């Protein structure tokens, strides 16, 4: 299905039609920030944002997920039951992160049924970037501000309209369902769309990652790790705001004779993460944990899945309380 537009004046009607059939998540204003949340009756869609503070991984891989319940009769699984969800407004870098997470959770040997169910039920309508941030570098790690990889539908904000392009079977089917609300784009619309996709990448400051995976292996014992990690507080904000960090733990909570088992996001930056009951900790020092995190992002995932898992969203850089910059660490490794 070719590109179609919805003029801004008609946007609310279109969204309401989608909301009638599905749960609709979009960018709305919450507590002064633009967040990806269920669009309520009183919510206006906000389109003037660079990116959400938190990554969308929690939509498929919730921070706190009920896995099973148990009582005296045994343990019973509890699979997600939310039904179809249309997610609008995810940036292409975050969409790419979902593809990376697919490699982990949908691995054929052990398919994660919880993630699989949510993934199946999600229609991803990505929104191309017009104004990348200073901290963005998606083009250096396999992405693009107008990239369609992984999106079901790719949208462009043309100021007076939204342009939609179906990228997958699911996406095209979605557009077909709402064909009544979609119009053919004008020549000006298409020119606008092309301008966005050609201009946006130019605003990004790229980084060099050529040969990084091998260099990381070579310089595992380098003193640069301990030096560069000196200011690190071990706070874990980088891992919680990263779209591809997916470390988790399984925890039980008992309520009398019954209880629940849940999956909880964890961080490899916390010392307790790898701490063994004997007291031995394979990654005892903060810098060892930081080295592990960066190796995982740029080396382990390449060896295991063929991809650098970093998508260049810049959240770890923007949120680090001591302004540790992964781009600088990468440059230091390459320079070694």
């Amino acid at each position, binding site marked *: 299905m070719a590109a179609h537009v919805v003029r801004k004046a008609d946007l609310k009607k279109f969204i309401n039609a989608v909301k009638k059939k599905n749960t609709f998540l979009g960018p709305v204003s919450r507590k002064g920030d633009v967040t990806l949340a269920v669009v309520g009756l009183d919510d206006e869609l906000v389109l003037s944002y660079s990116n959400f503070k938190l990554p969308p991984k929690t939509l498929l891989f919730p921070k706190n997920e009920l896995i099973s319940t148990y009582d005296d009769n045994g343990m019973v699984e509890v699979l997600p039951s939310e039904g179809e969800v249309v997610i609008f407004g995810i940036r292409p870098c975050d969409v790419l992160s979902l593809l990376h997470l697919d490699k982990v959770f949908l691995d054929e040997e052990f398919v994660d049924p919880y993630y699989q169910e949510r993934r199946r039920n999600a229609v991803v309508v990505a929104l191309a970037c017009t104004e990348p941030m200073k901290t963005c570098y998606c083009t250096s790690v396999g992405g693009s501000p107008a990239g369609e990889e992984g999106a079901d539908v790719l949208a462009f904000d043309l100021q007076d309209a939204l342009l939609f392009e179906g990228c997958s079977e699911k996406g095209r089917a979605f557009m077909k369902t709402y064909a009544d609300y979609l119009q053919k784009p004008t020549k000006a619309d298409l020119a606008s769309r092309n301008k966005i996709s050609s201009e946006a990448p130019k605003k990004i400051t790229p980084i060099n990652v050529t040969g990084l995976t091998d260099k990381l292996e070579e310089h595992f014992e380098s003193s640069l790790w301990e030096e560069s990690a000196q200011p690190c507080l071990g706070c874990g904000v980088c891992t919680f705001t990263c779209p591809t960090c997916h470390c988790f733990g399984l925890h039980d909570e008992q309520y009398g004779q019954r209880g629940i088992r849940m999956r909880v996001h964890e*961080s490899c930056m916390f010392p307790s993460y790898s701490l063994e009951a004997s007291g031995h900790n394979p990654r005892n020092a903060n810098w060892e944990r930081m080295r592990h995190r960066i190796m995982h992002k740029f080396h382990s995932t390449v060896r295991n899945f063929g991809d650098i898992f970093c998508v260049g969203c810049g959240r770890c850089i923007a949120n680090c309380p*001591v302004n*540790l910059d992964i781009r600088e660490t990468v440059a230091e490794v390459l320079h070694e």
Partner: protein
Amino acid sequence: MDRIEQRIREAVKDLFHKDRVDLVIGFREGSLPLKSRPVFVRSEDMADDLVWNAFCRGNLAVYLPKLFPPQPQRDEDKKPYPKIGLVAKGCDARSIIGLIKEHQVHRDNVVIIGTPCLGMVDKEKVEAVMDGDAAAQCTEGENGIFHITGISGTKKSVPGEEIFADSCLECPCPLPEEADVQIEGESRKPAAKKYEQVETFEARSSEERWQYFVDEIATCIRCYACRQACPNCYCNVCFTDQTKPRWNGPGDDLSDLMLFHIGRIFHQAGRCVECDACVHACPMGIDLRLFTRKLGRDVEELFEYVPGRPEEQPPLCVFRMDDNQDFITEP
């Protein structure tokens, strides 16, 4: 600011020259606008990396407890502690005093480089001034005016008072009192009214106050940035991470989130110096300081104790016959 920066560099070089320090912790230029970041200066030549500006947020005292690990039992196994210099604002110095009182840091091994502070810029306030346009550049001009350029190109000039963090505006002690090396320069005047924000909050109804607390805490993602950024949080294993017994679940349940914060806030009572490191570190912008401030005010009223003054003992370590007992109620 530039002169203070130069003086800091010279003072640090002098300290290395006189072999008074093995390490100096200060700030260097950040990789993003509105950010400076901690630097660990280990020699005289590195001293020129040090900067001083209105973006030096965060409490450098947080690095100290780990630099003074417990010593082994046998004398022959003991290693001497390093001599550490710290470029300290008023709040950093108050933290260091607190850590000394709690035996986490050795006074003889710390050189407090007292640095006069005019206030630190709050990124959120800058964004508000720029109507949401993120700042690409922010420089300090004459007379405390800051010139901000947004990424869209808009330019605005505002006085520092409009964009300094609330904790700076209410700071009681911008110039460190216990400095070993005092850097010359202008600091802001200590704030007159300390607890205005708390009083305004207390005037609201109980339901409103509870709802505000719940709404703020509900956005917490348990990243523990607040705890890690705080110099007072130096416990080897935080109560929230203990498994035996499990005090607190790891989940998103509101009760779990609240228990962590209530626990941390109460652990800060009488110790928090309101440096705002926790607020600065929090990625979700939770109004943490209001709650620690409230308890700080209570401790000041009940025990006439304010953290950061070297001559006083912490109230929970001292028993006086005339201790206030008003808060002890009949069950």
